[in-house]
């Protein structure tokens, strides 16, 4: 037969037992339907059973690399195998969770930095760092952008809180003597982060391009005029050829007055330059907290009679 359904070859010469094509298709469909009737509920049951314990699914196990049973091992793994939490050790001194000791200011400062990054990125969508548009953008943000006012308020108050948080963190670290060996270097990283925090806040002050920011930045950068050697009003500055058009203040403002270039410069320092530098120092800061043995205490008190055992410095070598 010229229908070319291929059954001749498959039939292998048993021409007498030929089944019509229609019957074969019918039989095939019947078995398909039967298998659906039998398999679907079974598979559905299997699926539902599987969903009852989502932690067994392939998607789950591909994301979370360990079980979630409440065992000490899993508690430790939950911290160690998570990229965001692995800055923490698995276990810490029972007293170092005491808020009265730590004040939590370092962590709060970091959290505020995250809040500021988040709100800052959103603010950047509505802001042009140009003299024509900057002030109008802030007005637009306050009056027309949904939640724009809340966004700007949060950014400003979080910045103020961050400055206070950094100061209190430094205060606590000093009062507990936490800068002492082996944490001297990390104290220095912290001092740099303190300066960067103040600079971040200061560069942001000019951005609304209003009287408050303009005069605050004018007062602030006028000090740079007086830089010894590098400012045109500073000691020995004029002798070294400093003028209002080539001194350190000119470099900061991109001009001899606070104007469009100063706005652009503070925008770029504020949104890109200093955050990147600060992030790098933060990475080092957190890393060194771990490497230097975790947070400093609360450590057991030391008696004066035991103090000289840990003597160091030039004299320690001779004894």
């Amino acid at each position, binding site marked *: 037969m010229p229908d070319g359904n291929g059954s001749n070859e498959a039939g292998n010469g048993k021409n007498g037992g030929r089944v019509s094509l229609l019957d074969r298709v019918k039989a095939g469909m019947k078995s398909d339907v039967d298998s659906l009737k039998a398999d679907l509920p079974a598979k559905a049951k299997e699926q539902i059973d599987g969903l009852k314990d989502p932690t067994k699914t392939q998607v789950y196990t591909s994301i979370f690399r360990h079980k979630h049973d409440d065992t*000490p091992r899993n*508690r*430790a793994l939950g*911290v160690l195998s998570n990229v965001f*939490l692995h800055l923490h050790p*698995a*276990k*810490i001194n*029972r*007293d170092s*969770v005491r808020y*009265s000791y730590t004040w939590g200011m370092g962590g709060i400062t970091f*959290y*505020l930095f995250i*809040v500021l990054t988040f709100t800052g990125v959103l603010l950047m969508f509505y802001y042009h760092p140009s003299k024509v548009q900057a002030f109008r953008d*802030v007005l637009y943000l*306050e009056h027309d952008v949904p939640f724009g006012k809340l966004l700007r*308020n*949060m950014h400003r*108050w979080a910045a*103020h809180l961050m400055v206070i948080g950094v*100061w*209190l963190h430094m*205060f606590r670290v000093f009062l*507990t*003597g*936490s*800068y*002492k060996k082996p*944490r001297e270097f990390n*104290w220095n990283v912290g*001092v740099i982060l303190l300066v960067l925090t*103040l600079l971040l*806040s*200061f560069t942001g002050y000019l951005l609304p391009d*209003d*009287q408050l920011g303009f*005069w*605050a930045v*004018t*007062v*602030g950068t*006028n*000090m*740079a005029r007086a*830089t*010894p050697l590098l400012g045109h*009003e500073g000691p020995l500055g004029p002798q070294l050829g400093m003028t209002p058009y080539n001194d350190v203040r000119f470099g900061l403002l991109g001009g001899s007055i606070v104007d469009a270039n100063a706005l652009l410069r503070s925008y770029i320092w504020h949104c890109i330059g200093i955050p990147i530098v600060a992030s790098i120092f933060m990475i080092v800061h957190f890393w060194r907290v771990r490497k230097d043995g975790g947070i*400093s*205490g*609360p450590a*057991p*008190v030391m*008696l*004066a*009679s035991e*103090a000289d055992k840990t*003597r*160091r410095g*030039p004299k320690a070598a001779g004894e």
Partner: protein
Amino acid sequence: MDWRQLWDIMSAPDNVPIVGLIPLLCFYIYLAWKQAKANDDLVVQLEGDAALAKTHHRKSWPFRPGWAKEVHVWPFLLRIEFLAAIIVTIILMIWSITLNAPLEEPANPNLTMNPAKAPWYFLGLQEMLVYFDPWIAGVVMPTLIIVGLMVIPYVDTNPLGSGYYTWKQRKFAIGTFLFGFIILWVAMIIIGTFIRGPGWQWFWPGQTWDHNRLIYEVNIDLPDIFGITSNLAKAIFGAIVVGGYYLVGGYIVHALFRRYNPKDYQRMSLLQYSIVMIFLLTMVALPAKMMLRLMWHIKYVWITPWFNI
């Protein structure tokens, strides 16, 4: 009393953080003092009882044998961090809903704000402009503050008080830091925010800001008091006075330091000791110069053709 104006200054949105900072600092100083006292008491007790000193866990918090010395980060630390983040977010939300960020008129270089104030955290430096030339107040002092903070770990040779609050074991270090942070930094900010009015003049809290007030302060230079007129003589005289301050001041500090901190004195190298001396004397020079100005109206001590101090 001009209550209205006092309220206007206190409630200016950018001044709210400073108003908040005062009780916050008081609270944390109290918290630190309480723990320092508990630790100091424990030290006294342990020093008087050698047997107890060998067995005691050395903390002012309770500990019983059998208690785990370490706890899991999850959940014991992470839940605190999570709660702290939520509380900070709530505070920030409420603050942002109730208080608007300030926005003045568009920037206008032809209309000077009076008073024109730096951001509140720099007001301590701006306050110093009253007493020092800008190159000292605006450039040298911030540099010295940063460098001074950075050298602290390398010049503090006292091994006691590492990792716990104490006062008796670190009187000199903590006293110096409190003086620098509370008196020279925070107090100057508070003066700059609440006291300084138009023309950067001193207005007591509640005194009305008078934009037309003029104060005729006849400030004189120290060499003038001694009738020195020639430039060369003024420069030499000033150098002698400033050098004398560091020499005599250094001697006094030395005499006190070696008596009251004999152990630290013993431990410190010459370099460490000199650095502490220079920073301490420079720090004390701030209030000293302020006194000279406020009590005797002295403007400059050292006058040269290139700089004045």
